[in-house]
């Protein structure tokens, strides 16, 4: 009995995602595919212990779910008068004339099912929260509980979000097909935004080291890889993958908890950086033209400059400051200005950086932005103004959600250490 349950679990985990994608494409309805597969699983749990596990459990689930979905469609067609519902039911009936002519489940899986599902889940017509939730559930295959835990919402809330999003896919007619060439750039852009958010959530400093967090990061890298085949020359997509590899390279080091380039590892931690990931990021960036780089390419280039420095003191701060300048012009934001202030402070002397940082303090939105205070604290230290530096460090500590970093701040250690300054 337990052997059967194990078999079911194994099939479930490995093939569930593929079966749902394949079913959803054929039915044009992700919610229906989900529901049908749930019922197929229930049937498996009832039948397999006595009938035995089929030779091809995945195929069994696929076929059972398919038949169940058709039953639902036929029932809907009877209930809803109107040509459209009947048309849909007739369409799916044509595809399945009789059990003897059932499509081979192996034929139902297309090579690009994952990509198609990813693009559908990331359609710009869906809110960013919906895109992230759908992608993690139906492309990455995380459970609702895992996703809810990652985003600190109750599981019921996350389930409702998913149901609403699947309803929109069905009701608004978001096609579960490869997009038309003209739509590709916007669809990629929308998908990149969701993947980037998944990564930053996983990388957020609020819960360092938790397993769900690491899961999100590695899923995000995998998802970014899935986007490339749609347009291998899309430089922002290349930039995203490069950036994620470069951020992952530093993820395991002690101070790698923040995605902010501000938090620089001292030399001891640099030894833990993954040179393989850095090389991969460098390789990817090298394939881009460097002409009119988008924000992701720029962030990747900055990350590469950090990753390439053997010691913190070897960092090319001037080049980084320049890149932040270009980035700020493309996507102006006070957060980017704060990072630029730090780079300028390291390149041209602390006073130059403090000039920018102090102006930013006028912005009320930044009062609770811990990195800005940490930036000021570091530059003030370098300028020899230790009393003001301590005050800034206190502010940074107050606004830091991450226990590890807050402790370091409170103990007075500088975030940017490079040994003998």
């Amino acid at each position, binding site marked *: 009995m337990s052997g059967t349950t194990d078999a079911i679990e194994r099939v479930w985990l490995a093939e569930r995602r593929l079966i749902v994608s394949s079913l959803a494409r054929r039915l044009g309805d992700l919610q229906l595919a989900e529901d049908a597969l749930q019922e197929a699983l229930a049937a498996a749990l009832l039948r397999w212990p006595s009938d035995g596990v089929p030779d091809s459990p995945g195929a069994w689930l696929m076929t059972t779910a398919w038949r169940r979905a058709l039953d639902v469609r036929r029932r809907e067609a009877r209930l809803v008068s109107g040509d459209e519902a009947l048309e849909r039911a007739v369409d799916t009936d044509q595809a399945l004339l009789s059990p003897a002519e059932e499509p081979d489940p192996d034929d139902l899986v297309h090579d690009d099912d994952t990509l198609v599902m990813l693009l559908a889940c990331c*359609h710009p017509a869906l809110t960013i929260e919906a895109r992230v939730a759908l992608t993690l559930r139906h492309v990455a295959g995380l459970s609702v509980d895992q996703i809810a835990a990652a985003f600190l919402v109750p599981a019921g809330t996350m389930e409702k979000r998913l149901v609403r999003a699947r309803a929109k896919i069905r009701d608004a*007619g*978001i096609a579960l097909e490869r997009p*038309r060439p003209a739509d590709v750039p916007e669809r990629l852009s929308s998908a990149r935004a969701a993947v980037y958010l998944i990564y930053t959530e996983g990388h957020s400093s609020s819960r360092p080291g938790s397993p769900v967090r690491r899961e999100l990061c590695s899923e995000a890298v995998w998802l970014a890889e899935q986007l490339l085949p749609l347009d291998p020359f899309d430089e922002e997509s290349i930039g995203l993958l490069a950036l994620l590899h470069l951020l992952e390279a530093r993820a395991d080091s002690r101070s790698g908890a923040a995605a902010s380039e501000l938090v620089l590892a001292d030399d001891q931690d640099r030894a833990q950086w993954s040179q393989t990931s850095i090389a991969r990021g460098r390789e990817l960036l090298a394939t881009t033209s460097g002409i009119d780089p988008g924000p992701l390419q720029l962030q990747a280039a900055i990350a590469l400059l950090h990753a390439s420095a053997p010691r913190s003191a070897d960092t090319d701060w001037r080049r980084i400051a320049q890149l932040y300048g270009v980035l700020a012009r493309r996507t102006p934001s006070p957060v980017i200005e704060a990072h630029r202030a730090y780079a300028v402070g390291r390149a041209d002397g602390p006073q130059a950086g403090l000039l920018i940082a102090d102006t930013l303090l006028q912005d009320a939105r930044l009062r609770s932005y811990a990195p800005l205070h940490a930036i000021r604290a570091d530059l003030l230290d370098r300028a020899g103004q230790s009393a003001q530096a301590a005050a800034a460090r206190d502010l940074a500590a107050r606004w830091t959600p991450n226990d590890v970093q807050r402790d370091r701040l409170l103990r007075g250690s500088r975030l940017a250490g490079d040994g003998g300054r």
Partner: protein
Amino acid sequence: MLYLLLLTHDPAVTTAPVADDIIDDWSAYTDALASVGVLVGGAGLHGPETATTVRRSTPEALVTDGPFLESKEYLIGYYLIDVPDLDAALTWAVRAPNQRYGSVEVRPVMPGSLAPGPGAGSP
């Protein structure tokens, strides 16, 4: 699938009641929709100053002057189109001539709910 394209105009962009310079563009747009066979219906509307709204929140029907939407953007027209999916509808929506002056809401029609009759579609 049937989609309703709701067209609006934002008077903050231009003080003309409806942007005069795009009247020809609307004809061209309508012709384009009709020529590929996706046009089911559509119409242009008189300005919001001609609108009358009926509300029934009190036992007596409350009839007031003006549109029901309390926003500066107001409806100027609609199209009812029949296209395969949302992306096809959006492809048409982005080509609507009022992009500079307002926006287009794309709303799917509930299957089976379209009432038959000439009102449903006279371009």
